[in-house]
């Protein structure tokens, strides 16, 4: 079974401003994927855009063999993806990368999601729910209408704490802002996070201060997506030694205290 395949588009739906939910028929990925992994997507058959685009695995349905993606249109590649129609064939590589480290069943954990960073965390919370973990999601967005996945998290019986930049829903401010008002996350086994770098950097330092472990899902521009080209280097500090790790193959998930936040 190869890690490269053609997948049929089952549906594409707008869910928020410039944000789309897509379902693909990809049974091998659905079967093998773990939360935090991604697929490397060929958005066009032409040479413009040339390269694949990394997109997190948002959800899978193993019985149905379905892979779901949630993505924001930011440029040519995601624009083409958003325009695809039911029945179109999209070439995928995956599942790629190392996912989140799962806690012991029944643990209490925190999840911090900013903007489109919510995408991979739905799959994570799904698995955490299966493991009967007690999950608090700190969910941030620009405003109410940009908020993503709140309903999904609630359905999975996570406690959801919302923060919006403009205060149009929940706490007015950022995710680290709302976390600093809540002490809950300090008593969890681990905090998982995905979102803008400044958000993750701030949370990472709060975690470090409180001496709580955390894992962050990072982004870097990617060439190969499988560890061969070294495009996606990120600085990771381990026992005081800083080395370049590959987001695609060594990550995208790294211990938050090891990430050299720049």
């Amino acid at each position: 079974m190869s890690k490269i395949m053609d997948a049929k588009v089952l549906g594409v739906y707008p869910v928020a401003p410039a944000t789309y939910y897509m379902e693909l028929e990809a049974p091998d990925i659905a079967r093998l994927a773990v939360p935090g992994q991604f697929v490397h997507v060929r958005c066009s058959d032409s040479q413009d855009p040339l390269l694949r685009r990394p997109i997190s695995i948002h959800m899978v349905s193993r019985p149905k063999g379905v892979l779901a993606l949630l993505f924001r249109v930011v440029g040519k590649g995601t624009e083409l993806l958003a325009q695809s129609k039911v029945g179109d064939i999209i070439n995928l590589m995956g599942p790629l990368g190392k996912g989140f480290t799962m806690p012991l069943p029944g643990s209490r954990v925190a999840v911090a999601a900013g903007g489109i960073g919510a995408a991979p965390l739905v799959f994570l919370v799904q698995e955490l729910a299966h493991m009967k973990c007690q999950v608090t999601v700190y969910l941030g967005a620009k405003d109410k209408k940009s908020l993503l996945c709140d309903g999904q998290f609630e359905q999975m019986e996570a406690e959801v704490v919302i923060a919006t930049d403009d205060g149009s829903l929940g706490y007015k401010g950022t995710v680290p802002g709302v976390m600093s008002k809540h002490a809950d996350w300090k008593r969890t086994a681990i905090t998982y996070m995905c979102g803008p770098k400044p958000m993750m950097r701030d949370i990472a330092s709060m975690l470090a201060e409180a001496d709580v472990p955390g894992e962050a899902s990072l982004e870097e521009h990617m060439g190969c997506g499988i560890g061969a080209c070294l495009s996606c280097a990120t600085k990771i500090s381990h026992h005081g030694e800083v080395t370049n790790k590959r987001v695609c193959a060594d990550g995208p998930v790294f211990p938050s205290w090891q990430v050299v936040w720049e």
Partner: protein
Amino acid sequence: MRPNLQVNIGGIIMKNPVTTASGTFGFGPEYSPYLDINKLGAIVVKGTTLEPREGNITPRMAETPAGMLNSIGLQNPGADYLIEKYSPYFAGLTTKVIVNISGNTVEEYAKLAAKLDGVPGIAGLEVNISCPNVKMGGMAFGADATSAAEVTRAVKGSTNLPAIVKLSPNVTDIAGIARAVEGAGADALSLINTLLGMSIDIHRRKPVLGNIMGGLSGPAVKPVAVRSVWQVYQAVKIPLVGMGGIVTAQDALEFILAGATAVAVGTANFINPLATLEVVQGIEDYLIKQGISDITELVGAAHRS
């Protein structure tokens, strides 16, 4: 009858003319889940230096129209690690493994060449005098006929391995440099390395790449690469490995007709991990369709038409 695909690159016998471009295929194992590497004529592995290197700061990659810029900067675990960790793997492959080497000084090239001599599993060296992404040990050597020849001579004097010298397209006269390198004893030439380029982020008003400039590769550069092979073929007698923007067998055939005895697939691996195998198959199909029994008949044929 199946046509002969075997070629000889300066003493390295390849079962078919298709190899990988250094830096785009890791050390091999990365691509094993996607294809049977032993079906390739050879693999050229990531640029290796005497000491380990951390490479350049990120961002190291930017997409451009039909191309990409990279400024990896020769991040690699160093020659000792390569010998210890990868050479047993190389020795187990039936394809030929060519190690791409770089140095800060002529002496470093020589030392590295000596060190890799006789290591099991290594069939030859590709001498990178054309990397645009490092201050020393890179393009500076390849930009000038005298220093290019000097590096070549130093390598050839330190190893029994065949040496393929890799040329830069960022020069006024690539044929002149090719002649100098041939004169200094190179067994073969490979070309082209990346074109020096850059992109600017208009929102942040600064270069996209952390290292400011990078190397342009991919389909965009193909016309420059084919032209370079054409010119160098007229200038030297040693075999050429052509590369730059090869995605399909049709692309590869352009290089062969221009004068390349073998071809390397680089950036296309990122788009289609099976690109190399598809190129091998497509070349074979073309030969059969055209009734050509030996690939070597095609090498440089466009000069004779």
